[in-house]
């Protein structure tokens, strides 16, 4: 077997050294009732690389590949072009096959890259500090709500109706067990985010108001008023960003007064991957750093006075604090954070701004064209690279019909909000730099056909 280097002779010699007569001697602690005498029945035996590849290629072939068709899906996962060097670099064995940097003297590569990543995330979000990443945006969002509870010692968070419904579900799952109260509402198909509702809902019991920017329908609203109102009431503003590229063009949440900014980093450096692995971004004001969950890389010096990096403030973490830790999170999303950081390095400020401009310009042009179709309305007053169309019929069957015609035309709000008939005609369309004019034409045609 190609992955197992011991030969039968080795095994025999080693058993002799140990003083065992057979391998079974080493499993004597297993209760007899639970010992398997031989391999598990009815499962296939080992297979060659060729055979395994053949099987997986066949499975992969049963999926419609985003890059092979006109593609307009977003809602928390975005298809951007990733430079070839990103994947090459993250596959270097020293990154790919290393572990959490517990021994900093021989993990400076990972640690320095994480320190650079934290700096990039903090600057992108307009915050003082950022951690070394979380599992994904949805879990980062819940951790931010829990962190706001620890800071304010209040247990009620107000969630914007524009927050990704999966993020809301994750928070609701957790809140059922922690006792946090969540005020939630479903969105409506209006042109503005629900800022007014949130302003009215903040009170003296509020730990945090949680707002997605741009929101699930792609809408944009200034966060400054919410930050001011939240702070007046002793609450925190948590901003959630599911499309990092947006911040190349838009003012950052930190700049508008958000206390904690979290989000999904997948849009930079990480492919769609059918939903994971992704990379959660987490940043906040410096004064809250000791309440922050997750790993942190920090600068220090070695015994010769040379600059170096270590994992730090670990007294917040589970391996030291055990049941009193800020979170049970143990790892981060290291390799995805590295991919994010490498892609961001390639972009730089100049490239990120150009990428964001290109996304917005393409989306604006597509929105103009699609909103001109009979019976189709553009919902958003403002957007970055994703907007919502109101169709003259339910969007779910339209999406399926378009897929049958070879166009992945967007996400129907009926898929995300099955219980909200008022949203059923909504279609969320994302237009990134990967979309061509011909793709938009194909979407127009498919939409016209499906609406007939």
């Amino acid at each position, binding site marked *: *077997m190609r*992955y197992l280097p011991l030969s039968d002779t080795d095994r025999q*010699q080693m058993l002799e050294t*140990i*003083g065992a007569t057979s391998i079974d001697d080493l499993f004597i*602690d*297993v*209760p007899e009732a*639970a010992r398997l005498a031989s391999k598990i029945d009815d499962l296939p*035996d080992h297979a060659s*690389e060729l055979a395994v590849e053949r099987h997986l290629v066949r499975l*992969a072939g049963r*999926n419609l590949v985003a890059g*092979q068709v006109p593609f307009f*899906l977003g809602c928390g996962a975005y*298809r951007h072009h990733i*430079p070839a*060097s990103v994947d090459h*670099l993250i596959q270097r064995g*020293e990154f790919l096959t290393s572990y959490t940097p517990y021994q900093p003297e*021989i*993990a400076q590569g990972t640690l320095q*890259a994480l*320190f650079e990543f934290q700096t990039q995330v903090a600057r992108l979000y307009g915050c*003082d500090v950022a951690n070394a990443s979380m599992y994904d945006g949805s879990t980062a969002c819940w951790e931010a709500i829990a962190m706001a509870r620890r800071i304010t010692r209040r247990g009620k968070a107000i969630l914007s109706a524009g927050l990704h419904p999966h993020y809301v579900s*994750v928070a609701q799952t957790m809140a*059922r067990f922690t006792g946090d109260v969540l005020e939630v509402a479903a969105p409506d198909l209006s042109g503005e985010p629900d800022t007014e509702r949130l302003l009215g809902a903040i009170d003296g019991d509020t730990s945090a108001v949680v707002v997605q920017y741009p929101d699930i329908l792609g809408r*944009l609203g200034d966060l400054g008023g919410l930050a001011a109102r939240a702070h007046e009431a002793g609450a925190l503003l948590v901003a959630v960003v599911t499309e990092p590229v947006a*911040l*190349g063009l838009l003012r950052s949440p930190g*700049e508008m007064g958000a206390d904690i900014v979290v989000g999904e980093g997948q849009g930079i450096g990480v492919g*769609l*991957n*059918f*939903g*994971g692995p992704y*990379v959660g971004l987490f940043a906040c004001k410096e004064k809250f750093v000791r309440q922050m969950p997750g790993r*942190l890389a920090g600068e220090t010096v070695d015994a010769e006075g*040379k600059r170096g990096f270590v994992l*730090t403030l670990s007294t917040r973490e*589970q*391996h030291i604090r*055990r049941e009193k830790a800020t*979170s049970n999170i143990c*790892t981060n999303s290291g*390799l995805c954070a590295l991919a994010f950081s*490498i892609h961001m390095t*390639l*972009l730089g*400020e100049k490239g990120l701004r*150009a990428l964001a401009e290109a996304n*917005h*310009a*393409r989306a604006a042009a597509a929105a103009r064209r699609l909103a001109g179709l009979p019976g189709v309305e553009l919902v958003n*007053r*403002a957007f970055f690279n994703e907007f919502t169309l109101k169709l003259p019929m339910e969007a779910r069957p339209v999406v399926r019909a378009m*897929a049958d015609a070879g166009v*992945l035309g967007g*996400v129907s709000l009926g898929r*995300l909000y099955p219980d909200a008939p008022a949203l059923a005609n909504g279609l969320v369309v994302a237009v990134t730099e990967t979309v061509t004019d011909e793709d938009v034409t194909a979407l127009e045609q498919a939409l016209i056909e499906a609406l007939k």
Partner: protein
Amino acid sequence: MTMNREGRPTRPEAAEDAGAETWTGNRALMLEEPLLFEIGDTRTTGVDIEAVGEGDDAHLAGLRRTRPIGLAGLSEPETVRHYTRLSRQNYAIDLGLFPLGSCTMKHNPRLCEKAARLPGFADVHPLQPIDTVQGALQLIAELGEWLIRLTGMHSVAMSPKAGAHGELCGLLAIRSALEARGDKREVILVPESAHGTNPATAAFAGYRVESIPANAAGRVDLTALKARLGPDVAGVMITNPNTCGLFEPDMIEISRAVHEAGGLVYCDGANFNAIVGRVRPGDLGIDAMHINLHKTFSTPHGGGGPGAGPVVFSEALTPFAPLPFVDKIQADGGDRYILVEEECVGEHHGRSFGRMTAFHGQMGMFSRALAYILSHGADGLRQVAEDAVLNANYILRRLEDLLDAPFAASGPCMHEALFSDKGFAEGMTTLDLAKGLIDEGYHPMTMYFPLVVHGAMLVEPTETESKAALDQFIGALRHVAERARAGDTSLKAAPFHAPRRRLDETLAARKPVLVYREQDTAEAAE
């Protein structure tokens, strides 16, 4: 200086000259690399973006960015060099034996990388219509079936993103099941040898944590456990094989006692590598167990994630499993895979405790893990466990004369060998030995864990090491252990040959510097 005929120095004193400072600070292949923000700037980019004509601000609601972001960029050649140089400052499995106990640092087959990058898996959106992702759903279902069969359990939840996330999944299912029968139990029992995530997870799930002591043989103290069971105990979280590298021989009895007292049994499956194909946790009476795909099934650790932590459930917990999950139905005379999500709850999954993450879990890890599992098959996976256990016992027996092995007398270990610092000279510590191993070209073992052993050293070689590799590692470890026993104080200053000497962790925590600040702004801020 005396030279030989090729012009190479022949005397030892000449070698000392090689230590002289270089102008660059580099030492040949050991290259110093500045921070990205010191070599890049905001005007440089390594990508060419196709211009799309002039956009306007009509749809931006006045939110156009006005301040610079401060993101440094590099050209592509500079980027490749920056990260290649950084990578060379890391130890990795690809470089050598990585005996980090309880982390299962085994070889990562590159077939798995290739599988994950097939466009049919890597370039598929999680919200595509179900009919366009049948292959992805089938892959999740096939992997899930393997995990169920290998563990002898009833069902599996695939969405948890990591081991600790899987623990949370298991405990939420336990809490939901107890609440469903109107039972408000508040306490989770955790052995004192448990990994720190166990108590943290139990607390995160809203439980009070109480510790169960270990007995002299490094196992759960069954009598103490039984004495503590009662109507307030929701369940136990037990790692098996445990963190001392030992199988819990009373596991069936523990499960029976917990069940009789009305509780449920969570097993931390971090160490499943030791028993895969030899023992099915379902036969031990376990109700929930997470499986770290990045350990047993070798998806790469990536410098600390991403991992994946699917959870297998007993029949009792199955109705409470999280959303979403993949189901196979018959349609049009063939198999069709569907995703059971929120909208399906009323129909056939009314008691799910809910969603743990956006979308459906770590697809990129599923494709890798399935490639690994199919490569090994039922026979190979059993061999994995046997070779992992054989390698660990070989290390244990070849070192126990020199390093104190607190539980070696009670029999063989499983996949990892535990040693303590007993017998070291006054003032010499586990940390010193670990740093000495770095100079020998090895990543050290897990240090100071489990907490039940003084100065613990937990060595997990894994099955992907050859006998020759083990022999060399044993030689190195014996050499460093002898120095620690003899009180060789030069060990206190190790490592000497790593990219950095010992780093000041106290300074890092006292004055946290977590992001780079340009010199002038940093000074202005002070």
